[in-house]
């Protein structure tokens, strides 16, 4: 499958005429009107917009809870909230951020929008199921938020038994929420898998797929194979609470560790649901702004699959001190280390893609580079935790909290911001304000380090997580962290504000403002409802920038 095919005159001609034609077509935003045309839409792009709105709201709620948590931790005493109040705050934060925000956000927003566009299809294979999955998300979120608002949940996002089966908070409705959101995620993944297998444009062979598609595919595998397990697990917790049958209750021989196995069998792969799509975004953004073919295409593609596969067999690294057998621990530890290798491959390839590039630093690129810097630290500290001897000391301390914020916020959140800026012109047909974009990237980067770096230190010093009050000697770090969080909050709120502004008032853009190669850029911005006026025929690999520029005609207006 040689990547370069000689450009033929027909190709160029047809491409530009297609773009012209698309521009005069009604686009997906104005094709039909009225709220019904949105709430009953089958159009993957409109569903993506629905998801942008709802996940952003979820993020703001989760952020609000984070703000409460950080404020409370400013002083060693519990002066802002009661113990229960604090527990409910961080549980709300974790549950909202994980289940309602970070797991769905990239697949449901960017994935929904881009998968059909990138593979030259008119829609996902099952548009109605796609819409249904948004409704499931909404219903599940409703249950979750109901649980959180009407009295709260105090189990943390991990729902460990027997605490979760005996506490007297709204665990059942939170569990039902998680169960339903899980199905939303299953349906998204299942739609993507079928679409990628069955609906690729002519000529779009597997190794010509954009890396974003590879990573969405890998993510979808995790979604369909892992999510059912969390479904049945939270169901068992709910049943146990309702009927007190003793499934996880040691009084009847129930094994709390079984719960942990079941939970992490999903939730560790789920952390890769929370990062693989980000990897995909970075693999698109870096070549576009370095104007280079990506280094090691097939290695990056395969490493996504490898991460998805191996990611299923490392769950026991969350159980090193829980009473799991040492032998099992050894196996899980070794595999956890192994999974660092495919991730390392990606990082090295992204870096090498900059080599001999022609690099510019628009907002998406800045976010992408900051992503590497932050994810690197997050990933490397994951290796600390994967070492059994060290995890004994670090487990459930702030070191873990710092680790996962570095990968989830520093990693996926930044990748999402890179992606949303990069495809914003395509989604909205308008440009975001460049200066504000760069500024927010910088603020986020700085604020992030101030917030979470001190947590590594205090974690090693022994500060346990989920602590409402703490011993005074940790205060210095907590004050730093809270200060950083306020900076970080500003950094995150900025894009919410200026992107909303840009949606209505931003300057209009042509179909390909960043002069990128993907199929999604070969149609107008915003795209027409059926995505392409003519179905594209693909003849080369995805990142042939050199080829693309030689061809003068590609610069769409």
């Amino acid at each position, binding site marked *: 499958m040689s990547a370069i095919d000689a450009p033929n005159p027909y190709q160029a001609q047809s*491409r530009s005429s297609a773009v012209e034609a698309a521009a005069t077509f009604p686009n997906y935003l104005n094709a039909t009107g009225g709220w019904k045309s949105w709430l009953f839409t089958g159009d993957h792009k409109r569903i993506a917009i629905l998801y942008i709105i709802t996940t952003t709201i979820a993020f703001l709620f989760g952020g609000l809870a984070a703000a409460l948590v950080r404020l409370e931790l400013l002083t060693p005493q519990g002066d802002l909230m009661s113990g229960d109040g604090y527990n409910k705050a961080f549980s709300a934060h974790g549950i909202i951020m994980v289940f309602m925000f970070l797991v769905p956000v990239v697949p449901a927003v960017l994935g929904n929008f881009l998968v059909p566009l990138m593979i030259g299809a008119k*829609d996902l294979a099952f548009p109605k199921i796609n819409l249904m999955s948004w409704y499931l998300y909404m219903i599940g979120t409703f249950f979750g938020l109901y649980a959180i608002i009407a009295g709260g949940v105090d189990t943390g996002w991990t729902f460990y038994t027997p605490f979760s089966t005996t506490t007297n908070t709204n665990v059942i409705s939170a569990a039902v929420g998680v169960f339903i959101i899980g199905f939303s995620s299953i349906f998204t993944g299942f739609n993507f898998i079928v679409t990628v297998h*069955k609906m690729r444009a002519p000529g779009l062979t597997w190794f010509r797929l954009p890396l974003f598609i590879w990573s969405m595919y890998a993510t979808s595998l995790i979604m369909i*194979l892992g999510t059912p397990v969390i479904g049945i697990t939270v169901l068992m917790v709910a049943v146990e609470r309702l009927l007190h049958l003793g499934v996880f209750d040691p009084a009847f*021989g129930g*094994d709390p560790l079984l719960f942990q196995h079941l939970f992490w069998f999903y939730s560790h792969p789920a952390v890769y649901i929370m990062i693989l799509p980000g990897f995909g975004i970075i693999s698109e953004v870096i070549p576009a702004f370095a104007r280079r073919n990506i280094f090691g295409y097939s290695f990056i593609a395969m490493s996504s699959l490898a991460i998805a596969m191996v990611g299923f067999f490392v769950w026991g690294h969350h159980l090193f001190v829980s009473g799991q057998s040492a032998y099992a621990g050894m196996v899980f530890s070794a595999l956890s280390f192994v999974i660092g290798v495919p991730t390392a491959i990606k990082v090295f390839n992204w870096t090498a893609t900059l080599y001999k590039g022609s690099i510019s630093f628009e907002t998406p690129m800045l976010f992408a580079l900051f992503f590497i810097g932050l994810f690197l630290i997050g990933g490397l500290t994951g290796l600390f935790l994967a070492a059994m001897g060290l995890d004994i000391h670090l487990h459930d301390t702030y070191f873990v909290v710092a680790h996962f914020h570095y990968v989830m916020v520093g990693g996926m959140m930044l990748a999402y911001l890179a992606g949303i800026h990069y495809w914003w012109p395509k989604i909205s047909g308008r440009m975001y304000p460049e200066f504000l974009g760069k500024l927010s990237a910088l603020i986020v980067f700085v604020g992030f380090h101030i917030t979470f770096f001190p947590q590594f230190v205090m974690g090693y010093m022994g500060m346990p997580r989920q602590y409402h009050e703490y011993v005074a000697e940790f205060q210095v770090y907590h004050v730093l962290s809270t200060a950083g969080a306020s900076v970080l909050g500003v950094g995150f709120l900025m894009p919410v504000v200026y992107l909303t502004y840009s949606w209505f008032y931003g300057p209009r853009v042509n179909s390909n403002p960043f002069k990128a190669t993907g199929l999604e850029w070969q149609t107008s911005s915003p795209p027409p409802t059926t995505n392409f006026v003519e179905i594209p025929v693909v003849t080369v690999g*995805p990142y042939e920038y050199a080829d693309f520029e030689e061809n003068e005609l590609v610069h769409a207006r």
Partner: protein
Amino acid sequence: MSTHASADVHHHEGHDPYLAHHFEDRAQQDEAHSLGLWVFLSTEIMFFGGLFLAFTVYHVLFPEAFGLASSRLSVSWGVINTIVLLVSSFTMAMGVHSAQVGSRKLLLTFLSITLLCAGAFMVIKGIEWTEKYHHHLIPGASFHFDLNDPTAPETQLANWGERREAILIADPHVERHAQMFYVMYFCLTGLHGIHVLIGMGLITWMILRAKRNEFNTRWNTPIELTGLYWHLVDVIWIYLFPLIYLIHRH
């Protein structure tokens, strides 16, 4: 990176009423549907998988309790239900076949038999569950599992006294752990039962659609998909049956 196919590729021959707008042709659509269903079935496997895992772990932890508790289930009902479900699978397969060859009458007949079998399965499950209720084997406050119960099958054994001692040494809390078996039993058969009910709903829907003459040799995907789902329900029972009824019969 790409070119565009000439326009006529898109506006192709006539319009197939069974073809959704976003698919290119029937082959693509059918394959997408069947792949979709299979992917869905694999999530079902993982869904049940969680429960099977719980069952296995507790079986490993409490072999004696599971053996004893299992031997209080009625093998004959289990066998009958297995046969009923296998037959229903067969009639379902025949139903799909009838749809493929375009015989509406046979299709309706086979679907109806399938539905009947499914109903029978649920009725028998109902009988079994009621039996459990009368024997105080429903987990919860009223649960009562007694090694000295003279009506229980194991207490009829010749060397029961000896065995009983051995069991109690191996697992002093065997009576308490027996409850775990029933918890798993009700979870597994309950979840399976829910799937049977969903299947019955689907089959009924298919019968109604077949009555409306919606299917023909060119269009029978819904029947096929319902069939696949139904067979999966059967496959799960094929595993459930030996696991819960037969683990300790020797």
